């Protein structure tokens, strides 16, 4: 959709300054672009490439390796149902079937209103509170069919302020600081 906005460009430059080599900022900058557009757009990848000094193909090649980068628009809420071993033992496949019926889309599908994309995901490190569902990477623990329907209703009604739209990862960022020790040259401050 779009290149990074002027505001995001400032954030991007602060992120790049935190690494000894700009290329290391590739993944965080792709997250930033995804936060802006809801998915990783081609123009944004081109812009990221310009910022970190590599080719757009290198950005695309790296971004396509990682599951969290969506190269096409998704629903506003990305619903990831974990079905790995601990969740499976606690009934995750039954829950996934319920989710498919409840949302009316198969795994991988997006609801016609663009609200939900359903995914089957791998272990999301919530094994002791299985089965776990992540909505835009926010955890819902020990999910039952009933609690899933409640969650969907809340999301449709817009009463879940704690879950931002897809693309927004962490709402708190490491901020630039005047105590930053590295003045730009790699490891200048080392003892």
């Amino acid at each position: 959709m779009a290149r990074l906005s002027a505001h995001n460009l400032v954030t991007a430059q602060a992120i790049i300054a935190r690494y000894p080599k700009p290329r290391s900022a590739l993944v965080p900058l792709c997250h930033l672009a995804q936060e802006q557009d809801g998915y990783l757009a081609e123009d944004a990848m081109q812009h990221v490439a310009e910022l970190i000094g590599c080719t757009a193909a290198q950005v695309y090649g790296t971004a396509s390796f990682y599951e969290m980068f969506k190269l096409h628009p998704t629903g506003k809420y990305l619903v990831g149902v974990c079905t790995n071993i601990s969740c499976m033992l606690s009934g995750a496949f039954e829950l996934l079937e319920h989710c498919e019926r409840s949302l009316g889309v198969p795994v991988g599908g997006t609801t016609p209103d663009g609200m939900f994309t359903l995914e089957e995901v791998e272990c999301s490190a919530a094994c002791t509170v299985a089965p776990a569902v992540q909505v835009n990477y926010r955890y819902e623990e020990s999910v039952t069919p009933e609690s899933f329907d409640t969650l969907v209703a809340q999301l449709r009604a817009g009463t879940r302020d704690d879950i931002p739209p897809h693309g927004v990862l962490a709402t708190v960022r490491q901020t630039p600081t005047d105590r930053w020790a590295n003045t730009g040259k790699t490891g200048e401050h080392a003892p």
Partner: protein
Amino acid sequence: MTVRSDLPKIVSGRWDIADAHTLDGYLRTGGYEGLRRALAMQPAEVVDIVTGATVQGRGGAGFPAGNKWHFLDTAAFPHWIVVNGDESEPGTHKDRTLMERDPHQLIEGSLIAAYACKASQVFLYVRGEMAFAQERIAAALNEAYANNYVGKNILGTDWSVDITLHWGAGAYIVGDETALLESLEGKRGMPRPKPPYFPAVMGLYMNPTIVNNVETLSNLPWIMVNGAEAFAAIGSVKSNGTRLIAVSGHVKQPGTYEVECGVVTFREVFYDPSLGGGIRDDNDLKAFIPGGGSAPWFFEEHLDMPLDPTVVGPAGSMLGSGAIVAMDSTTDMVKACWRLVKFYARESCGKCTPCREGTSWLELILERIIKGHGRPEDIGLLLDIGDNISPGPFPGPNVTPGEPAYAPFPYKKTTICDLGPSVVSPLMSALRRFPDEFDAYIARNPRKLIEVASA
């Protein structure tokens, strides 16, 4: 009874304190005292203390942190500390809790490691899917920077170091340390061959690098305050301190618990009222995973084994990342095996052919067996593909209780990293112990009925 009620909580002590993630809450509970003590010493003394405590790495491989630091050429400039917070082993649920509930402890541990190793910069690699952990760590880092715990002239000394919070983007393979470094360099997270790319020699940007797990570093503040002797006094002779275990699956009280290394047995993990509390519906235990999805399975005859790598390894499995998954008598072992194999098939990075091809073949064959299209020759095919990924006798307990293990841990491999052979663990465990369940699935194939009818 070996579950100690008076066990000091080394890493999980602040989990019940509501504001432990803030600087105020952390300082009130003795936070950053370990850093102050470390800064009063020479870096080499800190290394000696950590080496003396013998903190075994808690990420999976179990390599002692102090020994790892000794490999580092501290005169080389620059060199880095990388914190591996890419927890995604099936069944593991400890690093996320540590990062969410006690982020300052991790920051303090990283600072102690950075001071001991004279590192130029610390990179905190947090798994992409853990948005809440990232928020907690970012907030804690911002507070720590503002209050002079990180950055220039830390606590008034002439020592400075930066910590960079880095986000992953969803790839299990990045949990491997060399793949993590590739990812941190802004590339596809594919492992590097070792040798020559041992991180302590050629790591991030080809500079010497130490990669430590979140739990390993979280132990350091306690060790600096209480001393190496106090740490070594906890646990058995060969494995010191405590470790976090995540008990999940068919237990009554799933949860993350801090237990004494090398002392507590699997029976206590599952049945002790302060831990697992028994198997769901009081069923029998059919099998259990002792150390994450990559570990060969154990069975009821191993229940009295202590959680000690020197005991579990020769018996054919590993403690790995402390993920213990119970499967009760109602579990369909073919499906459990298929689900774990499917995980490795999805997460294989595609660099080594035996793993890239083998994992997805295994998944497809198991899927057709489960759907009732299995063929009698499929069992041999599964074994053959497994042998291509991990040649020779595969580690694992013998199916006959009392007999020696097939082979001690670790596995042999035709791949660069351990993801490939990990797929063979659930496969071999299920095939050796529960061949009848595979045969029962294959016998459902309707094609055989047609052959009989046409004869």
